[in-house]
């Protein structure tokens, strides 16, 4: 599996990056759709506040996000402590933590894209589904969701790309542990922080870039199919 031009550690970083980015997207997709739905369709007082909270990871520096996650999910945090006591789960320093930090960071990006997708769904079609007997959940699954799928795909792609590059929050929350939490960006960062590390950093950045192209090609393929399915092409 390990091509000769990558050190074992770098190869691990590549695999880990892919894993972390994928897991973060998978984790955040469902909540993102839910939150997007609330933001677009919801009529409740705290809507703008929810919107702001969703944007928070964008607005504050990633290090602060990592720091906040540490406060929440750390072993002394309000979520981390019970997790540890009841389930013996310790998140920090694991690749799960890296995925979580990445998910939080890319969450606003997914939500935004999903929202745009949802907003462009013709409400007339949902109305038609209602008259055909489809209840709220049913018509969401069979009409709204498929019709907003271009937005979901776009969000997935953006989040995946951002996940490949997420750095500040991951290193703060999950630390940089080779083989565990050292993703590509952490490796790249390490390289740039070393005098003379430019070449290594450049090579790793190129790998990131190649991964991104791969992801985009895949997304392109899915989008083509999707557009055909949505009858737009």
């Amino acid at each position, binding site marked *: 599996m390990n091509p000769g031009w990558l050190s074992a550690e770098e190869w691990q970083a590549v695999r880990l990056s892919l894993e972390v980015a994928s897991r973060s997207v998978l984790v955040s997709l469902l909540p993102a759709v839910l939150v997007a739905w609330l933001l677009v369709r919801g009529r409740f007082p705290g809507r703008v506040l929810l919107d702001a909270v969703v944007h928070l990871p964008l607005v504050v520096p990633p*290090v602060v996000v*990592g*720091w906040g996650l*540490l*406060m929440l999910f*750390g*072993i*002394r*945090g309000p979520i981390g402590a019970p997790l540890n006591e009841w389930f013996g789960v*310790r998140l*920090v*320093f694991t690749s799960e933590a890296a995925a979580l930090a990445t998910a939080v960071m890319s969450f606003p990006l997914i939500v935004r894209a999903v929202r745009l997708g949802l907003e462009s769904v013709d409400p007339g079609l949902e109305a038609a589904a209602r008259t055909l007997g489809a209840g709220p959940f049913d018509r969401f699954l069979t009409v709204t969701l498929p019709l907003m799928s271009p937005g979901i795909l776009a969000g997935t792609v953006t989040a995946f790309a951002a996940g490949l590059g997420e750095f*500040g929050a991951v*290193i*703060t929350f999950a*630390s*940089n*542990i080779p083989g565990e939490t050292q993703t590509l960006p952490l490796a790249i*960062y*390490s*390289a*740039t*922080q*070393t*005098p003379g*590390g430019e070449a290594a950093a450049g090579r790793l950045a190129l790998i990131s870039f190649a991964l991104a192209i791969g992801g985009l090609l895949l997304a392109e393929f899915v989008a083509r199919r999707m557009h055909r399915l949505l009858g737009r092409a």
Partner: protein
Amino acid sequence: RAQDTLTVFAAASLTDAMRDFAQAWQARGNPAPRLSFAASSALARQIEQGAPADLFMSADEPWMDYVQQRDLVVNATRVSPIGNALVLVAPADQARPVALARDTDLAALLGPQDRIATGDPAHVPVGRYAQAALTWMGQWDAVSPRLARADNVRSALLLVERGEAPYGIVYSTDAAASRGVRVVGTFPAESHPPITYPFALMRRAQGNAQARAFLAFLTGPDSAGTWRRFGFALAR
């Protein structure tokens, strides 16, 4: 650019002390210096790319070397007036002293999931000193897989403060400023290269009297008290 403006690029770990110095400098009737704090590496690269820095205060020697090799430094002005100590810290509520000497079995102090937080030895100065010290103790091979490598000292310290890591290896200055941790041991000075902070005047500021004066102020006897107050050791 007028001769009397002064831009100082200082390693992030000097933030607090430098703010203090800047005020003192102003209090003496000088214009306020502009201070830019970032990782030494970022600052060094910026200087390489023509950043308008008059004074560079690095947190470690290699990045000053990097700048000097590119002929951007007034060589004669390079000094390393202050230093730091490397300490082992533990969360304040579970601190038990650890004697740090050759062959101290640090790994034995750790539970199966525990890690020691410190800077990333690959690029964070504190991590490099930690690596040297652990190697000197003969513990590197055993401990290195158990390190939680943080982005900078403050993050490492935070991991200890929050109880994520039962131990951390940080500078004594940082340890002193944190209420959440307690120093449980100090690495012997001979266990690692001296922790020094090289300062130098940049070549572009060769004729900048302000810059020279400020550098002199920082390295002069009047500053010693302030440096000590912030936990730094004075060189020699």
